């Protein structure tokens, strides 16, 4: 197989707080191939966003630090690059789309100015050419009257339109990797599908790999080739979308899938949920981090930390009991 586009090896990103060191990302490794659509799912605080920020090296030293690991992107270790080189990578080769389009655009500049700025930062074009590119990008994300709207300020745009502008900005320099950090969370449901569709369509046209971070399983199901599930700072299961959805091996994944709302099933009872709350990342429990919340935990789970290994079904899973449990056949009891 060809070199992966992004090869993250065992990164650990820690934040120092007054209570202690928060191990927000604790030993995450994964590879993303060119053009791949990778979904990263997990509940709030599991380290999804910090993983993304670490790749972009947006973690600021006094507060947080990438303690170990390597991030090989396109043949270079991003953690070794000098800041000036990194600035060229950011936006140029790896672009990022943020969660809240309402605040991610600078309120004092027009949409056009902001698009042109990004283009001028990374491409050797004249101002007029950059303007042409910017208008084209806006039209590509289906902003009506792109030319006229260039002169408008962010507050004159709706949430969905702003997120489309963010996508235009992200893709304006033809990055090789697009990191989308919960791009549809702040939008209403009717716009979400549109935006996702648009983003992935444009990414595909440009052969841009996408790292889609979300807690919405419905979104990854529809749009991602491969999925990794994160829990308490590490990846607990990884596989193709079909593998994860049809045959979850980790009790946490299984619980997440069970707690999804579906329109094609009638729920008579309360919605299922994974009981309990994620563990403290300052003093994570010994053994499997999911053990305290797991219905199937045994002594070994509380003693030894399971590592990510190949399961017979094809995906990789970090669970001691993955082989013996047949989660598919267990009917989930609604929690009280």
């Amino acid at each position, binding site marked *: 197989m060809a070199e992966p586009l992004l090869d993250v090896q065992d990164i650990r990103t820690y934040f120092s707080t007054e209570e202690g060191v928060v191990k927000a990302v604790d030993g995450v490794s994964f590879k993303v191939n060119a053009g791949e659509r990778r979904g990263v799912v997990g509940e709030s605080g599991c380290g999804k966003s910090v993983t993304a920020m670490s790749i972009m090296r947006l973690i600021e030293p006094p507060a947080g630090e990438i303690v170990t690991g390597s991030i090989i992107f396109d043949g270079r270790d991003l953690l070794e690059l000098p800041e*000036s080189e990194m*600035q060229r990578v950011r936006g140029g080769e790896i672009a990022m789309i943020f969660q809240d389009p309402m605040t991610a*655009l600078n309120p004092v500049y027009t949409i056009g100015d902001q698009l042109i*700025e990004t283009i001028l930062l990374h491409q050797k074009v004249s101002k007029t050419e950059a303007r042409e590119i910017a208008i084209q990008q806006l*039209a590509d994300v289906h902003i009506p009257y792109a030319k*006229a709207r260039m002169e408008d300020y962010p507050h004159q745009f709706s949430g969905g339109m702003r997120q489309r502008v963010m996508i235009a900005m992200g893709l304006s320099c033809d990055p090789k990797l697009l990191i989308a950090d919960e791009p549809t969370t702040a939008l209403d449901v009717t716009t979400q599908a549109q935006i996702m569709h648009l983003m992935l369509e444009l990414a595909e046209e440009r052969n841009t790999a996408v790292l889609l971070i979300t807690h919405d399983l419905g979104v990854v199901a529809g749009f991602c080739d491969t999925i990794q599930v994160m829990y308490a700072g590490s990846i607990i299961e990884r596989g193709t979308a079909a593998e994860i959805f049809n045959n979850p091996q980790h009790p946490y994944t299984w619980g997440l899938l069970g707690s999804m709302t579906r329109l094609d099933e009638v729920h008579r009872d309360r919605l299922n949920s994974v009981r309990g709350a994620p563990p403290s990342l300052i003093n994570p429990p010994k053994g499997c981090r999911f053990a305290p919340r797991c219905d199937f935990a045994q002594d070994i789970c509380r003693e030894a930390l399971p590592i990510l290994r190949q399961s017979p079904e094809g995906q990789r899973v970090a669970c001691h009991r993955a082989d013996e449990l047949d989660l598919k056949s267990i009917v989930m009891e609604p929690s009280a």
Partner: protein
Amino acid sequence: MTDRGPSDELVLDSAEGISAEPITQWDLFVTRLRRHRLATIAFLYMLFIAYVAMMAPLFTCEKNDTFCGSGPIEMSAITTGLMVVIAVGAGYLAYRSFRSNLRGAGVAIAFVAIVSALFLVSSWGWIDLPHINHYADQLPGDDGRLLIRIEPRGSIPMGTDDLGRDVLARVIHGGRASLAVGIVVGGLVALLGTVVGSLAGYYPGVVDQSLMRFTDLILGLPLLPVAIVVGRVLPELRILPGFLKQGAWGIAVLLGALLWGGLARIVRAEFLSLREKEFVEAARAAGANDRRIIFRHILPNAISPIIVQTTLIVGTAIIIEAALSFLGFGVRPPIPTWGGMASGGAAIAPRGDWWELVFSAGALISTVLAINFMGDGLRDALDPTQTIERK
């Protein structure tokens, strides 16, 4: 979930069919400023004061000027050029104001244009303009001696002081010191406060701490005593260039160096909150470097507190300069300043000669008030995050 993308028929790159006319930044600014009645009046008033102060030598003349009272005003090439620019510029502005229905501003600016044009014409000897004589010595008393402390009357609308000098002429000249102090202090404070505040707010840790402790030190200095001592010492220092030793310039630089602390704190606070905003993160993710983020992305968002604070400081600086001159430590006589005149006026006011005090203090107070109103109006007008309701 639908497989259809957003409706493609909407995608046009022409402005055809777009409902609202695009509004430019200038339109917004003017509209907002207009809604602020007081600020508009203050703005025009300051325009008037600044114009009169700038052109003070043309309105007034010294005792021994040969051309005083009659004949053409002598003007250097630079002054002539300046007047041409002002006359033409003001004329154009007045025209535009009338076009966009700003009658009040139009009249005021047209006045400036007309007066400038009159000066130009008189300098070429085509007409004679009446002048305010610096010394009212055309008014000898019965004993042939110079009349002093003349009450305001027709030809001397503000009376004369105890040396027989025309108060109106001196009020006009005094505005120059006040405005010079205001402009220099405003510029210095805006520059120092913004730079120190931005750096402290953007770089936490050592940079922040050392800059802010230095700011605390400056803020801790007792302003008036320090200004008095330094003001007293300044003229003795040989190393200083001459223009700093006399007149208002030295005091302006001194006050500028002492008054930036408050602004630095405000800018730092703005930066502390703005640097955590998602658009800053987004700018960094788009590959912007620190300089770009500080000056292009954060600073414009912090501009309204900077403007407001700077205008307030300008007002304060004018008052402090007046206070120093009042106490006799500021600009030395005979250079007229509002503070100095108020001091002289206060000395003779108990005898019932109220005019010098009232007119100099009145000029001072109205100017400082106008500057503060202007700051208010500018803040509202320049704030791009504020929405504007269309009437």
